[in-house]
């Protein structure tokens, strides 16, 4: 199977001429230059270890997928424009200016072949945070008008409408239908609530039972919560596309809705990037601490479990594998909550060789799921993960991220894989002690 992806796509908005594109990338990256970024760039010893942690390199053995190589244009910009010896490099032209052709070539490396999963940051002997550099690189690409069109268009649409593409019916209506279909009351647009909740768009469309499950658990726990019809979608396509402004606008929609109802906590559903965007990035983007706590739904439920408010039945003895979503677990810090929930239900957990903080990515994160052209490469990388899951001997397969489920579902169809990715929260909802 060929893993080659098609050449770059240009987003419609943003700078169009070559010079404007390069200037856009340089200005954008310069905004992010801080001591930590400087250290990350200056420290690299070109040892190549990061490749050995990256599923795209391991699966293809193509050197171009070496994580640190994916930010090469931006290393060059740093050294030429902001490094300690920038005037010297410029004077003797030791670091040439980047060209728009280089940036176009790098689009595939930054978007198609990186899930920003952060596994490479754990192997680097210098402690370089490669995934953060990729994120900064993506922002530069967006400001150069070179983010993939699919992501940029969806980000803009979501910033304007609250959801990333045209829909047949409003999400509020869809949410109501999900409640009716699953016989669960789903509170919408309450004036006041302690907890504000949103839902993954992918679940609302493809896996509505997961949305109903979250509502069912919250109802059982008698949580005073609400959805808001103008801020239902959890995903943040601004984050995927690399646009600071759109990411901020999309985050503000949830932040403002949560503030309006006086929420003390925002529960982020099973969606990894939504969690990162709101939990770890939103406050910095809006320039102030958020007036509420942000909790991933598994984290919230594990807290309820610890407080004795959530009591769970024991499930069957079926051997079960669990995929740790990178943005929630490795990078998000929700390390133990999923296992605490599984333990409380007596799940017969069979760990993969690489699990928890060291888990391989599902292959679909970071917007890769949305890039049609990246599919061949993604499938190649996903094979690694599917083999690891199969090696556990498990029959049941759980995870706590809707984006991961989309990626596994797609791989299941492609490879005719024999496992169905299931939602951990659904399992919890089905096993609440009455």
């Amino acid at each position: 199977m060929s893993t080659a992806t098609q050449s770059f796509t240009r987003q419609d908005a943003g700078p169009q001429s070559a010079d404007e594109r390069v200037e856009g990338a340089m200005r954008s990256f310069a905004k992010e230059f801080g001591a930590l970024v400087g250290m990350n760039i200056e420290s690299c010893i070109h040892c190549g270890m990061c490749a050995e942690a990256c599923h795209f390199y391991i699966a293809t053995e193509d050197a171009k997928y070496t994580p640190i190589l994916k930010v090469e244009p931006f290393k060059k910009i740093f050294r030429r424009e902001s490094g300690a010896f920038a005037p010297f490099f410029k004077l003797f032209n030791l670091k040439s200016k980047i060209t728009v052709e280089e940036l176009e070539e790098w689009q595939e490396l930054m978007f198609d072949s990186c899930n920003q999963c952060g596994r490479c940051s754990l192997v680097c002997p210098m402690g370089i945070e490669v995934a953060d550099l990729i994120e900064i690189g993506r922002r530069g690409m967006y400001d150069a008008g070179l983010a993939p069109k699919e992501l940029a268009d969806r980000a803009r649409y979501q910033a304007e409408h609250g959801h990333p593409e045209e829909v047949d019916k409003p999400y509020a209506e869809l949410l109501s239908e999900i409640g009716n279909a699953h016989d669960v009351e789903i509170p919408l647009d309450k004036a006041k609530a302690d907890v504000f909740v949103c839902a993954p768009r992918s679940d609302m469309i493809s896996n509505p039972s997961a949305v109903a499950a979250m509502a069912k658990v919250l109802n059982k726990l008698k949580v005073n919560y609400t959805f808001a019809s103008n801020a239902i979608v959890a995903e943040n396509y601004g984050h995927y596309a690399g646009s600071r402004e759109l990411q901020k606008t999309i985050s503000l929609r949830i932040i403002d809705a949560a503030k309006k109802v006086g929420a003390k906590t925002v529960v982020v559903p099973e969606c990894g990037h939504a969690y990162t965007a709101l939990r770890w990035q939103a406050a910095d983007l809006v320039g102030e601490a958020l007036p509420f706590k942000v909790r991933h739904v598994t984290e919230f439920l594990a807290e309820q479990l610890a407080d004795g408010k959530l009591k769970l039945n024991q499930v069957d003895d079926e051997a079960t594998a669990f995929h740790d979503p990178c943005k929630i677990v490795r990078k998000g810090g929700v390390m133990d909550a999923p296992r605490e929930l599984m333990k409380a239900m007596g799940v017969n957990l069979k760990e993969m060789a690489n699990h928890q903080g060291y888990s391989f990515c599902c292959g679909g994160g970071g917007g890769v799921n949305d890039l049609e052209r990246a599919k061949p490469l993604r499938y190649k990388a996903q094979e690694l993960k599917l083999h690891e899951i199969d090696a556990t001997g498990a029959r049941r397969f759980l995870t706590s991220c809707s984006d991961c489920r989309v990626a596994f579902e797609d791989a299941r169809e492609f490879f005719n894989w024999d496992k169905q990715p299931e939602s951990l929260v659904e399992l919890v909802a089905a096993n609440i002690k009455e």
Partner: protein
Amino acid sequence: MSILEFSRGPMLHFALIVFVFGVLWRLTATFLLGFRQHRSEPRASKGQAAAGGFSVLGMRSWPHKEFIGRTAFGEAVGYGYHIGLFTIVLLGAPHVLFWQNLFGFSAPWWPTLPGGLITFISILTVMLMLIATIRRVGHPVLRRISNFDDYFTLVILYALMLTGLMAVLGLGGRYEYILAAHIISFNALLIWFPFSKLMHAFYIFPSRFFNGYMHAKKGAAK
């Protein structure tokens, strides 16, 4: 002034000035970029985050078991020749004498290893460097990410190691010329240092620390 006098006189002093000011400027310029304020609710206190920073600072030299199968060889070669270089520079008797003369102090307590052992370690170190060089040229990833900095640094290191061995083993001509070549190689290393990847000798400490600090602050994997 003989070439030997020049190499350990004015040239050494010039090289030391470039080294000290260059290193200080490069580090200062990086820190002057400033640290961003992080406004998200942290999962760990500053003390716990700092403990995470120190943990990565100390532990990252030993790869996690999940990676070791793929990285062990490269790491063994890399750390191997670094340990060799440090042993030669810090425990070789002529070098200990050199440091004492350079900095003007006497340290009879400073231990040294027997000359034969240092020579053996030097040969081993050169062999490990050779393996590292072959990997850099032959391994697709290393070849792709390597640049002038990597190769020029290796050239200087080889010059330094080989002239040192030649001086000890009495090879290659008059001793004072070989010794001068050795010291000139060292001076070249000092001058090249602040402009090159050799700076990792300093960056490794803050880079690892802040990686661990930021991860611990989020409760993320380290």
